[in-house]
């Protein structure tokens, strides 16, 4: 009897472990393999719009020509760099804004704390697109901000805020700030406040105690928050399109245009693969530092 239960448990355990792997296999690894395959093909006017991986004689017909093209064309390198820069600026701003906010929430009274957390999560109840449109309404030439400044007499001509990198940055920071705050809050909230008192007791000023104790102990939250902001900000399509204008060069936009406007699936796939590589490198580096910290702690 007990043996039967054990067998059942064992089955369940295996299933529970297998489930996420299965998920990754079906929804990440398999599509990734398909994209990789397409990126090695040539575009053709057909359905599907790319050449087969094997020629008529069954020999492999794959080439890296799309990658060479991407690397040789300055436009793409600039676009990648601009995306990295914009994602970095967004991540930095989110960290600078998010850290004090997460700190304040973690140190608030428990009742206030849950209210503040609710306020952080509240925007998610409204569609993401609607919120980005709302920013358009705010930043338009005849939008709320310009009207207010004109009314106040600060300016007499409307400022061009919309369709600038500034507008894109505002939209990105606004949209991704909660993803920075929540993991930071989680790591700050479980920190023992005696540690900061102890540092001050041992001769550290408040500022010193923050950099010696709070900041290093919040590192896991900071890393998680930065990844959660940086990765989606890198590939973001909607915000640069709506707020940055149709001409703004970001990798998400290029990807979309290659797929849908140019119908150059192989090149678009190559763009996607390089984007993935760009994201994987910093993640692996960060995870290695985290693993090293964990090793020291263990």
């Amino acid at each position, binding site marked *: 009897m007990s043996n039967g239960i054990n067998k059942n448990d064992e089955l369940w355990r295996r299933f529970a472990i297998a489930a996420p792997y299965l998920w990754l296999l079906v929804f990440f690894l398999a599509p990734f393999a398909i994209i990789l395959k397409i990126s090695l093909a040539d575009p053709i006017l057909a359905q599907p719009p790319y050449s087969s991986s094997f020629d008529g004689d069954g020999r492999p017909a794959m080439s890296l020509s799309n990658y060479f093209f991407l690397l040789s064309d300055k436009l793409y390198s600039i676009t990648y760099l601009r995306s990295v820069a914009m994602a970095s600026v967004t991540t930095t701003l989110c960290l600078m804004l998010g850290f004090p906010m997460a700190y304040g929430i973690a140190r608030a009274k428990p009742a206030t704390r849950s209210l503040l957390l609710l306020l952080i999560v509240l925007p998610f109840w409204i569609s993401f697109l609607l919120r980005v449109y709302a920013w358009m309404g705010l930043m338009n030439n005849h939008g709320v901000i310009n009207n207010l400044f004109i009314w106040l007499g600060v300016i007499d001509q409307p400022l061009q805020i919309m369709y600038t990198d500034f507008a894109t940055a505002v939209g990105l920071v606004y949209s991704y700030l909660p993803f920075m705050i929540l993991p930071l809050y989680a790591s700050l909230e479980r920190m023992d406040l005696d*540690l900061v*008192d*102890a540092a*001050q*007791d*041992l001769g*550290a*000023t408040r500022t010193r105690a923050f950099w010696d104790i709070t900041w290093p102990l919040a590192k896991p939250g900071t890393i998680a928050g930065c990844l959660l902001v940086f990765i989606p900000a890198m590939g973001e399509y909607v915000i640069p399109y709506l707020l940055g204008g149709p001409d703004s060069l970001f990798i998400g936009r290029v990807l979309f245009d290659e797929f849908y406007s140019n119908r150059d699936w192989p090149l678009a796939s190559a763009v996607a693969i390089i984007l993935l590589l760009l994201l994987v490198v910093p993640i692996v580096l960060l995870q290695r530092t985290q693993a090293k910290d964990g090793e020291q*702690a263990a």
Partner: protein
Amino acid sequence: MKHFIRINGISKRFGDFTAVDNVDLDIEQGELFSILGGSGCGKTTLLRMLAGFEMPSSGMIEIDGVDVTHQAPYNRPVNMMFQSYAVFPHMNVAKNVAYGLRKEGIRRAEIDKRVDEMLELVQLSELKDRKPDQLSGGQRQRVALARALIKRPKVLLLDEPLAALDKKLRERTQIELMNIQDELGITFVVVTHDQEEAMTLSDRIAVMDKGQFQQIGTPKEIYEFPYNRFVANFIGSINTFESVVTVVDDDDVKAYSNEAGETLIALGKQLVDVGQQIGIAIRPEKIFVDKEKPADFDGVCIEGVVDDLGYLGNRSLYRIKLASGKVVQVSSQNRRRSVTRFLEWEDKVWISWKSRSAVVLLD
């Protein structure tokens, strides 16, 4: 003589709640002083005011002749050992201990030397490269102690230093703490809720309740001559007889107690008037219990029956019910080895004590 630590009319209010209420206290140099009380009595708030984490609402704190009332914690000649130990989890043992010296900007070589000495003192030299989560509770406690002592503070504050340790380790650590205090001559102020810990550790104890000191004295004074019911009941157990004063002599008080059905005598340390309602209190171990009425006994003898008894190995506890219904606790040493019980339930017995053993409790 000037006192080393002077706490003068210190109060701390949090909104409507008064945590510490106009407290005065003097502590001498090199003393091991305990503040003893239940949770919420204000002892930790008082300690945090000494450390500088809380600013008093009113009053003054002076340490070694310097007014530190409004000094920031990092400027005070005081270090604290936290109840949670607050060992920095991201630094190894040596770095934890060195932290305070690094903030002082002392030379590297000097820091290393002093860290080694301090780790030697708390017997952690072998573990200097370990991270806190690789240490046992007792080892973490010693890291916290070393980290606080390395700054050579004038006063070391200890918040429930032994509460998180198991019983065996607690006893050993207690002795270690006393030895270290002896060796370094630093003034220790300990906050604890554990009366046994306070009794064994301290030169003097302040018993605290509702933000005020109920009594300040040596462990012996506090145990043998408690001022009031709170102190008497907080430290050990005690039997209190409600009584009315009948005679006040030069050095003793006679009072009639309905509960005892007798006139009781106690050494009168406090001023009482005839007719006043007082408590006459006697510790369980100062009461004798016999099957026969003791002859020619100079003291109080009362008859009762054994209501309950318990065997604790080294001693036995009896609960004796008197004619009035009052139950008296008696503790007696098991001096002789015996398998059979000296007393059984419902046995008729006589309890007796010497008049000198009883004390007067006013309120």
